[in-house]
Structures are given as structure tokens and as C-alpha cells.
């Protein structure tokens, strides 16, 4: 799905092509695109960036997640439910949505708090840490393994897979895609083996146990369907939360006044996190395919075109958000689409919010005072998912 520039380097996002592009502060370029007239990538790909256009575009029934040929993120087959549309998509979302409501994921709260604290314990006495390596990276993967019901010793399998798919290695698009596919093959094999073992055991209460016993239209899910669902959950559940958490902690490291407000009143965190998800938009974009000629807000989208939909630009649109480049914890209403929008809106958003809120709350409780280590700076990537891939912080060590 990546395009190439004349130099052969992959183009990930229209905003990267702008003079205003800044890896540390991408919001400026996104805001520019949100107010541009009918933005287009250099390779001709149409870009939807204005907040209102995103809503109306995604609502159109001719706008689909795939064209049936191109699948997301190195999948060999359509990812369930991301690469499905219409009735088939609704069927699987009807099965999966109930498993990810706030009430259904609430049982994880003590697990999240305990795992966060265990990770903090490992560096709390050192007075410094790289929070990506020590906390943001491992935490969501540990939690995801618990959610699925897999052994914690399999952590490296997931960490390796996540990295290979989200930040594929390779000098060319072809090489990157080949490496992604190879990692995908390994994950399919791993999950198939796990399912075979689990079928031979008594049913358990975890997510895989749920998949093995649930019925869809009176029929059990096949192994193939479960593997396809798990494959997507692995991709969607690991790097996105890692990246989001790193963006939040990096922001707090560099904004001590705002951080103190939250430390003093952690009850504000739900709204604070929504505002930071709007501002940081860690998942910046998605792709959609148009199946027939359509017009949205006076703009023509021809049948067969692939469209780049920029959640991050919509979230910085000054026509939708007053003063969008300012983080405002008191923003009275915040119709952000940091978890995307339309029928494919993030299935795991309630789980992600829970993880982010509890991890930030526990971190700020343990280490209320921290800053970017002198002489260092936060290093962001904005390819694939926005993340603070290097997040070196220093903090006073608590005595007693």
C-alpha cells in the first residue's frame, strides 16, 4: 500500500511531504493539510484530511476498508474484522464488540496496575530510565498475553512480530513487504499451534477460550477464523498502546505545569487522555477504497481509488477544534477521532483507554517528578504509528 517517491523511498503520509513537516511536532503539518483544498499525495493518492469530510466520507456505503486484493499489515488473508466490509464485517463486530466494552475489560484493572508497578520497580531506584524500553514497550504486550490467555514466556515472540510488522526492515518497499509477510507467516504458525493445544484442554475464561466456545449464527468459529482474529488483535493491540503511552509520557515529561495538575487530581485523567489522544493522534491515518464513483462535499472520488484518511489531520482541523495546536484539558467537548471513525473504528479503544489511564496514573503516582535527561531529547518516529522511540528520563529517587 505504500507509494514511492522519485528517489524510491517509501511515502507513508501526505503530511511528510510538506515543508512544515516536523517529526517532533507533526500537528503543524496536519493542521495545514486539514485546511488544504482537496489534498493529494505526489503519487496521485487522494487524501481526506478535513474533520467534516472524514465523517461524511466514511459514512458513505461505497467507501470500503479493502478492495479485496490489498490487505492490511502483511496479512495473507483478510484480517477479521479490519479487512471486511458490509454484512460480513457487521457479523464479526457483533461477536467481537461485546468482548471489548468498558465493563468487559474492567477485570484487567488490577492486572494492569500490578504489571505497571512491576515494570516501574525495575528502574525506580535508578533515578533514570528509557521509558520506551522499560515501560511502554513491554507493558501492552504483557497485558495482551494475559488477555488472550497465553504464557508470559512467549513475550519475545510477540515483541519480535510487532516490530517486524509495524516498522518493517528493508531498503525498498518490496523488501519491507517481504519481511512483513515472513513475520506474518511466523505469527500464523504460532497461533495455529496454540489453538491446537487449547482445543485439547478444558475451556478457560480468557479471550481465546471465548473464541473457542462462542457461536456466530449458530456455528462455532473455525481455527482459521480465530487465527485471523488473533492476528489482527496482536497487531492492533501491541504497538498502538505502546506508542500512545510513549507519546503521553513524553508529553508529560516536557510539560511540568500540566503534569502537576494531573498529579494533584488524577480524576481528570480520562479527559486529559482524550485530549492528548486528539493532539498526538498516535495512529495517524488509515486507507480506504472507493467502490463506485462518489462525491463528498463537492469533491469527486472515482471508483477504484485508494484514499488516505488522515485521522491526525482531522484532529488538528481548526474548523472543528478551537485552537487545535494547544492542548486544552478543559476543552468542553472533544469529538476527536484518534481511534479512527466509521464502521472500522478501533475495536479495542476501551481497553486502550483503560491501559493508558491506569499506566499513566500509576507512573505519576510513583514518579510524579521527571524530565527528559539533560543533554538528551525525545526521538519520535511518525512512520506507521507515532511513538517516542527514545524516551530517556531522569527523576529523583524516592527515599524510604
Amino acid at each position: 500500500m505504500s507509494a514511492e517517491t522519485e528517489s524510491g523511498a517509501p511515502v507513508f503520509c501526505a503530511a511528510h511531504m510538506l515543508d512544515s513537516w516536523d517529526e517532533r511536532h507533526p500537528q503543524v503539518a496536519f493542521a495545514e493539510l486539514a485546511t488544504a483544498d482537496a489534498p493529494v499525495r505526489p503519487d496521485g493518492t487522494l487524501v481526506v484530511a478535513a474533520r467534516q469530510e472524514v465523517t461524511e466520507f466514511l459514512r458513505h456505503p461505497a467507501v470500503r476498508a479493502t478492495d479485496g486484493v490489498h490487505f492490511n499489515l502483511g496479512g495473507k488473508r483478510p484480517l477479521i474484522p479490519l479487512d471486511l466490509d458490509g454484512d460480513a464485517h457487521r457479523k464479526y463486530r457483533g461477536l467481537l464488540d461485546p468482548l471489548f466494552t468498558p465493563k468487559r475489560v474492567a477485570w484487567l484493572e488490577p492486572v494492569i496496575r500490578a504489571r505497571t508497578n512491576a515494570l516501574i520497580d525495575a528502574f525506580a531506584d535508578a533515578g533514570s530510565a528509557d521509558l520506551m524500553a522499560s515501560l511502554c514497550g513491554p507493558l501492552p504486550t504483557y497485558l495482551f498475553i494475559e488477555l488472550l490467555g497465553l504464557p508470559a514466556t512467549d513475550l519475545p515472540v510477540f515483541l519480535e512480530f510487532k516490530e517486524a510488522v509495524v516498522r518493517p526492515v528493508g531498503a525498498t518497499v518490496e523488501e519491507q513487504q517481504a519481511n512483513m509477510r515472513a513475520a506474518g507467516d511466523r505469527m500464523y504458525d504460532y497461533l495455529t499451534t496454540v489453538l491446537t493445544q487449547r482445543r485439547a484442554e478444558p475451556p478457560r475464561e480468557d479471550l481465546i477460550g471465548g473464541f473457542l466456545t462462542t457461536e456466530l449464527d449458530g456455528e462455532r468459529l473455525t481455527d482459521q477464523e480465530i487465527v485471523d482474529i488473533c492476528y489482527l488483535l496482536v497487531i492492533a493491540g501491541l504497538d498502538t498502546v505502546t506508542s500512545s503511552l510513549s507519546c503521553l509520557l513524553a508529553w508529560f515529561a516536557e510539560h511540568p505545569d500540566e503534569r502537576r495538575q494531573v498529579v494533584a487530581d488524577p480524576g481528570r485523567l480520562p479527559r486529559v487522555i482524550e485530549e492528548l489522544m486528539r493532539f498526538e493522534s498516535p495512529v495517524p491515518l488509515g486507507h480506504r477504497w472507493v467502490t463506485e464513483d462518489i462525491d463528498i462535499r463537492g469533491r469527486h472520488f472515482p471508483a477504484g481509488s485508494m484514499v488516505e484518511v488522515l485521522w491526525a489531520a482531522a484532529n488538528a482541523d481548526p474548523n472543528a477544534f478551537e485552537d487545535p495546536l494547544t492542548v486544552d484539558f478543559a476543552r468542553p467537548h472533544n469529538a476527536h477521532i484518534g481511534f479512527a471513525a466509521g464502521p472500522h473504528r478501533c475495536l479495542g479503544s476501551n481497553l486502550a483507554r483503560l491501559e493508558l489511564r491506569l499506566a499513566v496514573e500509576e507512573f505519576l503516582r510513583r514518579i510524579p517528578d521527571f524530565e527528559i535527561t539533560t543533554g538528551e531529547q525525545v526521538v519520535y518516529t511518525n512512520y506507521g504509528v507515532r511513538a517516542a522511540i527514545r524516551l530517556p528520563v531522569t527523576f529523583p529517587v524516592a527515599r524510604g
Partner: protein
Amino acid sequence: MRVTVDQSRCQGHALCTMHAPELFDLDGEGHAVVVADPVPGGLDQAAYDAEAGCPEEAITAEPRRPARTGQARS
């Protein structure tokens, strides 16, 4: 005052339950449902915030909010 949710538009963002927890809850699939109809006194502003804060424009609060000037509508 009343609030309604267009179920054909709701995608389960759940932001309404944050803006106005007294007025909205989520059903078993995570979609918004109205739990206070009509809107109890004193919650008009919460209802308007939930309406303006819905990413899918699925929420309608009636009567309409009085027109205001000088503020971006999200």
C-alpha cells in the same frame, strides 16, 4: 429537553459517557443508549457537550442549542 442516539451512526466511541455519564450508557455491544429521558434539569449543557462531542454526529439534543458566536463548533 431530550437526547437521542442514531444507532445507524453510533460506532461506540463512548465519548458521550464521558461528557454526560448521567445521560448515556453503553449496551452489550458498546453502543450508546440514552438512560435519562427526558434530560433531568441542570444537565442541558452536558447534553449539548455530548452532542457536539460525538465523532459520528449520532447524538441529537432538542431543543437546539441557542446560537453562539466566536467559538468553533466541534
